[in-house]
């Protein structure tokens, strides 16, 4: 016991000695900042932050930054998108953590439906913003950059309708022991083209399936115009061919699309496409893919474009706003139209532009798709006009919702009356129940793309190669069969990839990059994406709706450097949703002094 008392004495001595040098919290903070000289109102301002559990890290960073800047943050965390959206619609928030991905890769789409009065997703109305959006849409990219800069100035700097957070990277990891590294592409906007993917050991093309994964197993609809979300974007992109494609860095190209070439007519409101003759629709018989013998031609294109822009063509049309600029779509049969129209910005005729690089020049234009023959010079040409000069329409045509479907097949399935559509009775084209194994299984899909969905369960979906897709060209699908595993959880997906159960994992979370890099058989690809995360302010019934000062106080509380540090620099700074597409040079710099200023202005105005 003497020893233990001795021990205690030593211990207390240590602590007393240490006590002389201990810095308390107050000491530490006094060293850091001068005590404020004004007796201003320092009470915390309440703010409610809405988000989903999946964005927990972002929420925590924002909560921390706002708290440190004198806000009292109340969290409203919802487990899934449905409940999040319900809370948002009910207006139970001051700021909501939101994100936007410009899938078409053009700046107009990044702002129009979000910020324009009456836009699909817009909750705000500002004349100046509307004017700038419309102005930028008609301008050439160089001029538009300046306009978008002004738009950002108004949208973020002056009015703070949103507070930008970051641009995400798009990432995918794949098993390089199984897949050929050079065949796996990662594009900024476009989904992975499955037809290009090849095995390292090419002899396995016929015997082994390519195994991919996806988190959502409920497919919205396999009719391209009826969905625009993560559950079907990749699938529909690969099931339906389009008039045009995007390159990996979001440039317009005819490469791998239904058209050999395209041309923009003078005045920027006429667009011409010369069609291929080597794509047939595939159909499913006895769960195997077979060539339906029906060619993808001009009538299908016209049908698909017209239904895409028409709100009333199907019930639950989810993408018509993307195509609202389309005016008319028609097949050109009169050669003189092509000869007499000049290409925008050059003296060349559209005919020459469309013929560029083709082995046989256009000898005649045919109306019947079955008569078209590339080697004989008999072509089909589509002319599309827009409601106003709008070159960015091409980006929308590259979107999966502009996928070409079979006129004959869709018309034979969608026999219901759109106005009286009854979910319980009528089965629309592309309904996921028709491809789900079970008693409702009745696969009526006609796929114009490289692959066709044969059947799906809750566990996986099976696709087969379209036997009539660009046969003999470099775009002919390499691998016979594609399987898509539905794995909900990111950790499980990564485990599946590492164990070899799946070959490719699209959308690896930043926190797992190190794990992927540390695994010798995996390869990680990343590219700057068009996805921007930002804080959206409520525009109704809350103080943030009326007070610019309060919104700007939140804006200047956001420190993007800290967010980048948290994500190990796997995010990029953003200023608005156009940041990934147009480099405007604006940058958000956190400024606690400004926050204080705006907050006191807000408190004074109350």
């Amino acid at each position: 016991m003497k020893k233990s008392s001795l021990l205690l004495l030593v211990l207390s001595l240590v602590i007393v000695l240490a006590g002389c040098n201990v810095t308390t919290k107050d000491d530490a903070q006094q060293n850091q900042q001068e005590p404020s000289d004004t007796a201003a109102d320092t009470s915390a301002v309440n703010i409610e932050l809405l988000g989903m559990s999946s964005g927990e890290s972002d929420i925590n960073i924002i909560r921390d930054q706002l708290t440190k800047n004198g806000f009292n943050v109340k969290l409203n965390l919802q487990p899934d998108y449905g409940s999040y959206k319900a809370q948002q619609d009910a207006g139970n928030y001051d700021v909501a953590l939101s994100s936007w991905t410009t899938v078409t890769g053009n700046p107009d789409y990044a702002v129009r439906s979000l910020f324009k009065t009456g836009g699909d997703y817009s909750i705000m109305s500002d004349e100046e913003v509307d004017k700038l959006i419309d102005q930028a849409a008609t301008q050439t990219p160089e001029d538009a950059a300046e306009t978008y800069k002004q738009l950002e100035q108004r949208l973020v700097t002056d009015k703070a309708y949103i507070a930008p957070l970051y641009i995400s990277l798009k990432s995918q990891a794949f098993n390089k022991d199984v897949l050929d590294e050079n065949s796996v592409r990662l594009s900024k906007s476009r989904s992975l083209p499955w037809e290009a993917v090849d095995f390292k050991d090419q002899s396995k093309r016929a015997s082994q399936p390519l195994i991919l994964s996806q988190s959502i197993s409920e497919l919205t609809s396999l009719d391209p115009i009826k969905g625009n979300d993560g559950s079907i974007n990749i699938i529909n992109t690969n099931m339906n061919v389009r008039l045009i494609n995007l390159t990996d860095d979001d440039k317009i190209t005819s490469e791998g699309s239904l058209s050999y070439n395209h041309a923009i007519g003078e005045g920027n409101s006429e667009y011409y496409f010369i069609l291929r003759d080597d794509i047939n629709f595939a159909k499913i018989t006895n769960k195997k893919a077979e060539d339906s013998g029906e060619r993808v031609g001009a009538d299908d294109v016209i049908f698909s474009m017209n239904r895409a822009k028409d709100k009333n063509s199907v019930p639950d049309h989810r993408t018509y706003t993307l195509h609202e600029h389309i005016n008319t779509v028609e097949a050109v049969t009169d050669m003189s139209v092509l000869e007499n129209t000049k290409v925008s910005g050059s003296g060349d005729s559209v005919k020459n532009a469309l013929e560029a690089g083709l082995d046989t020049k256009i000898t005649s234009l045919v109306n019947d798709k079955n008569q078209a023959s590339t080697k004989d010079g008999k072509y089909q040409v589509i002319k599309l006009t827009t409601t106003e000069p709008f070159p960015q329409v091409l980006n929308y045509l590259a979107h999966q919702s502009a996928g070409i479907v079979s006129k004959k097949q869709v018309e034979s399935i969608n026999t219901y009356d759109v106005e009286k559509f009854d979910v319980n009775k009528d089965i629309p084209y592309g309904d996921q129940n028709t491809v789900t194994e079970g008693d409702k299984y009745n696969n009526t899909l006609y796929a114009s793309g490289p692959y066709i969905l044969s059947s799906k369960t809750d566990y996986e979906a099976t696709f087969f190669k379209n036997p009539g897709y660009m046969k003999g060209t470099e775009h002919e699908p390499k691998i016979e069969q594609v399987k898509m595993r539905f794995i909900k959880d990111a950790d499980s997906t990564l485990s599946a990839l590492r164990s070899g159960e799946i070959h490719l994992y699209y959308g690896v979370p930043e926190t797992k990059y190190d794990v992927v890099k540390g695994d010798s058989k995996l390869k990680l690809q990343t590219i700057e994406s068009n996805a921007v995360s930002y804080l959206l302010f409520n525009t109704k019934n809350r103080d943030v709706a009326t007070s610019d000062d309060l919104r700007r106080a939140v804006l200047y509380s956001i420190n993007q450097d800290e967010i980048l540090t948290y994500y190990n620099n796997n995010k990029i700074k953003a200023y608005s949703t156009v940041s990934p597409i147009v480099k405007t040079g604006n940058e958000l710099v956190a400024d606690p002094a400004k926050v204080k200023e705006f907050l006191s202005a807000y408190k004074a105005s109350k």
Partner: protein
Amino acid sequence: MIKKLLSKQETKHQLKSSHEYSQASFTWVISLTLTVILLLNSFDFTGGTIKPWVFTAFAVYALFTIIQIIITLLIRRDLRSQGEIRRSTRILGYIQLLSIVTGNLFTVTFGFNLIKKQKPPEYTIAVYMLLTQLFVIAVSALNLFKPYVSNTFLPAMATLLIMAIIQLVALILVARYVKTNYAHPRMIWLAFPIILTAVTGNIFALVLGINLLAKIRKNGNPAMTRWGDVWVKLTANQTAMSGLFFVVFLFCLSVSSLFTFDYSIAIDNNYSAILQPPSLAYPFGTDNFGRDLFSRIVFGARISLIVGFASTAIPVIIGGVLGAISGYYGRHTDNIIMRLLDVLYAIPGILLAIAIIAAFGANTVNLILALSVGAIPTYARTMRANVLLVSTFEYVDAARAFGSSNFSIIFKHIVPNSLAPMIVKSTLTIGAAVISTSSLSYLGLGVEPHIPEWGNILKIGSTYLETHSYLAIYPGLAIIALVLSFNFLGDGLRDALDPKLD
């Protein structure tokens, strides 16, 4: 003479019946396990180097483990040759007291046990009281390595130290003046300050004070009270005492941390210290937001304990009352209450909790309610069974014959005599409640994600299992240790409270 008569059989019995010997064996096994764990950790297998700090700790542990093994062998020899432990062997216990520097609870308590031949329960409680205080002080003192400490750190530490000194004095006095059946009357002046030191959450101090007062009151009377009897049995059970120690230690730490730990270190993000490995400033490392994991676990203990206790206490009371009523009145009352509870019982507990939280939102109060509701039927059943048994006893009939009211019969005669199984059951289920709390937080249904709670901390850790495994290991160990402690304590209480084992 006697020595010669001892047969081999009797020697075996001697070894078995010696508390010191069984504790010595238990201690060296545990101590060796800890030593091996430290040895394994001291090697950096990837680099092939030795971590000097961990290796030093290993060396010290190994030293005390060797001493422990020697003492064990000596005790064995003593018991065989003389039938009791020699004085010279007991003195070796003082060496083991030194192992308090290493934080090895097992060797220290063994040392305290060995140096004293006659051990009234007060002595053991006093030892644990002092150890708890010293452990809390040591853990709090780790904050000195942080860039800054909380404003109340210095006065709080001083208070804790003064309390520790009072408790040390108390331990010495108790060792001197308290015998199995007798306590010096002047000890009453010690009892009150000791009870006062319990404000830090040191339950041992409270128990010691009460025990002393009780002992002084009935000085010389050899009759045992139930309370006293329980403590005699409990203090003799080392696993139960180490369980109780950990629970009290955490409780005491939770209370003291209000003053000695800075909450902002556990809550505020620090982007310059993201995912740091364990160091002196961050004993358990930092998480993905640069928050100190050690502070978070300390603050997390508070929520785990509050939720654990509250969500056990509520069903014990509600279930207990319902069970007592239905057991005592029987017939229709019984049928109605029990069938209704059966309905509740049919719903899986965790599912019910998830439903309640999904409906009413995630916060601590709802969490407690959600976990409580599902547990009511089991307590009601336990209570009902006990009441059915106890109400057939003669003293109940006697009370009835005297004309006592039903109310007073239930709550004066029946309930107090049916409590033992309820206490045991609740101790065992607190552990389950702690796990449920953590599971719900892990699923994102508990408290807000930035609030330190063990399940929340573990959830972050689970995403870094491969790259920064300490983020999951430490909160995981904390949960395991707390649940295990409650289970050990529950087992010990069952043994102590079960009249059949008398």
